[in-house]
């Protein structure tokens, strides 16, 4: 890895995520839920469950529950904000890059899996494994 490039995360920038971590948006679980999915990263124990209900093809309610590091949990908080009120179809095209951009702070390669877990869980909740953009081709 090159020197002087952020290898990981600048702790001062984590500040932004810390807020989401301590006061997560859309925290909880919908019961009953039209769609839900739960997954984790076995290597670090991050766990996220997302449940949602739709109305006329639009995300009406969405909640997440989970445990793990700041990056994974705040990403879930941010992602659920992002998609609330959005057309289900539009979620299909949310790219990994878009997810990372919405985290505001640069995420180093060692933490990508944490940052992208919520997006994968959301896509799986809606479509199964089809569009989760998981790291098969990495």
């Amino acid at each position: 890895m090159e020197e002087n490039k952020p290898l990981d995360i600048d702790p001062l920038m984590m500040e932004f995520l810390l807020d989401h971590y301590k006061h997560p948006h859309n925290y909880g679980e919908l019961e009953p839920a039209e769609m839900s999915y739960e997954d984790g990263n076995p290597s670090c124990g991050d766990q996220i469950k997302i449940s949602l209900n739709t109305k006329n093809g639009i995300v009406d309610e969405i909640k997440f529950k989970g445990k793990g590091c700041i990056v994974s949990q705040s990403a879930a908080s941010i992602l659920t904000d992002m998609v609330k009120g959005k057309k289900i179809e539009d979620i299909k095209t949310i790219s990994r890059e878009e997810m990372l951009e919405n985290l505001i702070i640069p995420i180093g390669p060692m933490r990508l899996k944490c940052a992208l877990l919520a997006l994968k869980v959301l896509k799986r909740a809606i479509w199964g494994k089809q569009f989760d953009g998981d790291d098969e081709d990495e």
Partner: protein
Amino acid sequence: MEQLQLSQSEIEKIREDFPILNRKINDKQLIYLDNAATTQKPLSVIESMSEFLKKSNANIHRAIHILSYEATLAYENAHKIVAKFIGAKSFREIVFVRNATEALNLIAHSFGERFLTSSDEVVLTIMEHHSNIVPWLILRDKIGIKVKFIKTKEDGTLDYDEAEKLITKRTKLLGVIQASNVLGTVNNILRLRDLAKSVNAKFLVDGAQSLPHIPINVSDLGCDFFVASAHKMVGPTGIGFLYAKRELLEEMPPFLTGGDMIREVTVDGATWNELPFKFEAGTPAFTEAVGFAEAIKYLQNIKIERILNYEKTLEKYILEKLKTMSFIEFYGHQKGEHLALFSFNIKGVHPHDAASFLNSFGIAVRSGNHCAQPLMNHLKIENALRASFYFYNTNNEAEKLFSTLEEANKFFNR
């Protein structure tokens, strides 16, 4: 008279042997505290391999030409250096493999299939690294042996009373980690050996974490198997060894098969090469063997006893400090001997976040389950940070770790 401790000035000198310790991470001096995962390499080890490649590289055991002769000699000599280092009776008892993991697989496969049947039991400790668990579980599923685990007590030491109950005349092998890669606990292997011997069970010692720090003599110890990896003891990756008593190696069938491990092959079958080459199929990592030999010379030059003494002092120093840090939860280090290896958490902070924070200050620690999930489950820890020290680490580096942990705590837990 030679000091039994390494002095600060010696440590400073030693640090100059390790080029990587000069590296800056985010403009901060690297503080490398992930030695249990792999250690750094001194220049002599790095150069021994490049010299070999520049001057003597050729495949071993295969040709008449001088390069092949030199390479063969260097490779066989590396076996002798390992044998001497661990007190084996002969280099024929040293089998080179890729790493400790491969050595453990070799034992489970070759010893297991030749000597064990469905009524037999293998006893392990709950502290084992996955590499000394999974091969036995696979063997269990294949031939129906029973695998039992000696657990740890509240204080992080093995429950030797339980061990006495678990080890019976059905026990054919007792496999133990000498030093835990999670808790740093150094197990009482003499006591465990006596238990194994009292029922005539074979005794296997996983020395991956102990051999880099603790003087070992396998003949005095009387173990039947001992395994370790070069990369955890200032040597290169890609090479490790299995020590086994000669009588056992004679009886055990080959693990991998093909070139170099046979005496004679006809279309009807084959006979095996002499020890240890019977177990070293294919072109081995002879360049790395040269580096491994140099690594052992490097450690012997300093003396393992002095490394151990220095690290004991470091361990006490760190432990005393950790006890005063109320925002830290650390595991083990309550009773008995320990390596300068600590697993801990900042209360309320996920270890990945803490490790990221430390990393941005140039401090390399490990976070995760450390390939020892059964132990982590038993201790009810999901994940932890681990700082593992080696003889080139200093009190100053430990201080820097403490102050950065305090910063991290202030940052995350405000």
